[in-house]
């Protein structure tokens, strides 16, 4: 599985993502600097966490309008599996590839801890290795992870099985405890928690590993 990690000024989980992808897929991912938007064809694209462009204007707002994101949106639209973690999720929401927005945590605190997530839907390319309804432990580290969308959008997301993960306890005020959602076609997942930081027992657990293995299984 050939993968690419998109790197913006201010990304800081790009290396964690690269280590996770190399360990799990056995192949070093391509690190794509945002200016090198004409990057080779890959099987999988990851948008890592961080604080791209210093969160100026809104989290992910600047990155979402970058040249490289035009290319990512095009490829995601053509079906390339694409995963946005934390800032990557904020960027995907800002591009409109995923609905809604990530707002300041309701309690105003930066939340940095391991949290329990409930796997809501295992019928996606990202979650097929999990057991539906089970709880997994994955870290979060964000200030702006409070998922917001209007009621009609939330109903659609739930009705179409596009909520992949929910927080077992609402840590940030997210509507309906939503932690991660997919696009309608199911090839794009955005989530605030960091599965790439939970890929082996030395990191405190390996619940995040299953997500990457699920993608690999799908891609064959």
């Amino acid at each position, binding site marked *: 599985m050939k993968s690419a990690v998109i790197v913006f000024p201010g990304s800081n989980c790009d290396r964690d993502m690269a280590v996770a992808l190399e360990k799990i897929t056995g192949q070093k991912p391509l690190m794509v600097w945002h200016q090198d938007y004409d990057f080779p064809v890959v099987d999988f694209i990851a948008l890592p966490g961080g604080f791209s462009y210093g969160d100026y*204007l*809104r989290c992910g*707002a600047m990155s979402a*309008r970058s040249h490289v994101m035009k290319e990512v949106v095009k490829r995601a639209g053509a079906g390339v599996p694409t995963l946005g973690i934390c800032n990557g999720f904020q960027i995907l*929401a*800002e591009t409109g590839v995923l*609905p*809604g*927005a990530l*707002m*300041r*945590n*309701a*309690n*105003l605190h930066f939340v940095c801890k391991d949290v329990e997530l409930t796997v809501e839907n295992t019928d996606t390319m990202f979650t097929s290795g999990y057991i539906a309804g089970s709880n997994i432990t994955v870290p979060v580290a964000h200030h702006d992870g*409070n998922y*917001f*969308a209007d009621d009609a959008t939330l109903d659609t997301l739930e009705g179409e099985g596009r909520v992949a993960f929910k927080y077992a306890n609402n840590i940030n*005020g997210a509507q309906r405890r939503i932690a991660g959602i997919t696009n309608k076609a199911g090839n794009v997942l955005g989530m605030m928690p960091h599965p790439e930081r939970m890929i082996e027992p030395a990191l405190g657990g390996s619940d995040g590993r299953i997500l990457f293995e699920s993608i690999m299984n799908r891609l064959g």
Partner: protein
Amino acid sequence: MKARIHVTLKNGVLDPQGKAIEHALANLGFGGVDEARQGKYIELDLTETNREKAQAQVDEMCRKLIANTVIENYSIELE
């Protein structure tokens, strides 16, 4: 021409920073503040001199970047 843009959160969207401001004002002894909402103010110097064209331009800028219309409203004043 100058454009003055106010970006505010839509009604019904929780504004935790506004809430914190509201509480801090109460802690300072300021009564009579029912609600505080925080927004953004952005000023643009435009080369366009035609008012209608400027309005259309800035409106597009707001929709494409300056505001996230999922959660925010914007208003434009031209001078």
